[in-house]
């Protein structure tokens, strides 16, 4: 699915967190959104997902204007969001979390059942813990759960916010392997990451955000080759 973000602005009270950002994600493309803490990446993602209302600018899906839509409508339109806060519902079982992920297509029982089996195949750890409450999972398992849960709505565009945050290196490897597999199915992904190397390895293209603006953009390979990327834009 093609996502086009034009001149997006997000404000919290008087603070301008995002100051006119243009982003495009083509069909089946994996795009990374990089930047230091507080650069406005998460705000951009939340505004696309409808969780916060943009102050100005446009969000289009396949050319259709969806700016400021409520989150539930964005899910129906095929956009699934995985926030960095890794919000599993801790009192619900893994199973119930997944069932909720398929809320928008809950009447489609057979398909939902098939998708759940597919997710359990992709994330065997979740299958083992299907009846456990999500609050008892480890950080890595919770991250798998929120990705699997988002996939249950059969999105065409997945918004992933910092999937590697605070996870052990081996788990990070696994998560990125999953992302690569999901991308191979033709899913469009907009990935926010601080782990520049991993993100650029999996992405087709990338944007670098700095202080609420796009500071650089280009094919992932080129950005990865630019040696000064880190110090210049990521405050690294």
């Amino acid at each position: 699915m093609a996502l086009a973000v034009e001149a997006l602005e997000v404000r919290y009270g008087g603070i301008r967190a995002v100051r006119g950002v243009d982003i495009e994600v083509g069909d089946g493309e994996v795009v990374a959104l990089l930047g230091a803490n507080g650069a406005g990446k998460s705000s951009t993602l939340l505004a696309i997902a409808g969780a916060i209302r943009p102050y100005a600018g446009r969000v289009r899906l396949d050319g259709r204007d969806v700016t400021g839509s409520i989150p539930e409508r964005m899910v129906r339109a095929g956009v699934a969001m995985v926030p960095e806060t890794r919000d599993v519902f801790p009192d619900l079982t893994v199973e119930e979390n997944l069932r909720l992920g398929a809320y928008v297509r809950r009447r489609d029982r057979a398909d939902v059942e098939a998708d759940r089996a597919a997710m359990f195949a992709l994330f065997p750890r979740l299958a083992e813990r299907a009846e456990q409450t999500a609050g008892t999972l480890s950080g890595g398992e919770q991250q798998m759960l929120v990705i699997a849960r988002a996939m249950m709505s059969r999105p065409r565009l997945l918004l992933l916010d910092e999937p590697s945050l605070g996870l052990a290196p081996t788990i990070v490897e696994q998560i990125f392997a999953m992302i690569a597999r999901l991308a191979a199915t033709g899913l469009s992904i907009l990935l926010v990451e601080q782990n520049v190397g991993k993100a650029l390895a999996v992405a087709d293209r990338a944007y670098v955000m700095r202080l609420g603006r796009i500071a650089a953009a280009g094919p992932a390979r080129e950005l990865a080759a630019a040696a000064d990327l880190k110090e210049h834009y990521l405050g690294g």
Partner: protein
Amino acid sequence: MTAAIQFVIDVLSLGGAYALMALGLVIVYGILRLVNFAYGELIMAAGYTLYLVSASPLPWLVMAVLAVGAAVVTGIATDYVAFRPVRAKSVTAVLITSFAFSTLLQNAAQLLISPRPRSIPLPEVFSDTVTLFGVVTPARNLITIAAAAVLLSLFTLAMRRTVLGIAMRAAATHFTMARMLGVPANLVISTAFAISGLLAGTVALLWLGRIGTVVPRVGLEPLLIAFIATVIGGMRSLEGAVLGGFLLAFIDTALNYSLPQDLLKFRDAFTFSLVILILLWRPAGLVRGPATGQRT
């Protein structure tokens, strides 16, 4: 032995009613962080509906269904009048509108019906007594126990087995995340108010059945009971609310059996001091609810 059985029946029947009251309050609070001061008026609405249809030739059960329906409608009206227009503003604003809505409904009843008690129709069985294990007890008490058991089981089943039930439990922990999975906020909110009305309506039949009349202020006592029970049980936890209802019934009944008359008058002062102490000790109530939460 008979005294013990008597005590158990008293606690269970009172506790059943209390648990339903508490659950109706907490289902709205848990999801919306709204302490619904107009909750008692749902009971009032059911009571007056019974009174208004009492002259009709309808069988009592149909009247009862209409009364419960009126409570559900009033519950949903609370959402539209007192909650939805101000929910984005502030916690205090929502509390004040619900308090104002409560006053509005009470006084509307005074104005349109009467400030004086009105009698409501009750089925014969409510005034019967039953002998159980050698204890003579009003059949109403056993009906209350049965109704509470059925309703609580149905409620539990609905919350565990249906997608909407799961969605409501999810919304109670993290409303925005639930919305980002496609759970419609308005549906969840209206359902919460409707369930609240359903429980209040059922409680009305059982509670008003004890006195046989309805007055505009009739909702205050159930509201206070629901407050205490939810605080004891944990304001965010559905199981806690039920537990709190039974615990409060136990405390009340025990005090009734043991306190001398001139101290019994101060029972409310004791129980409400208990509420304050519990909140000081644990601001979220005794049973911890879902981990985090936020308003819409």
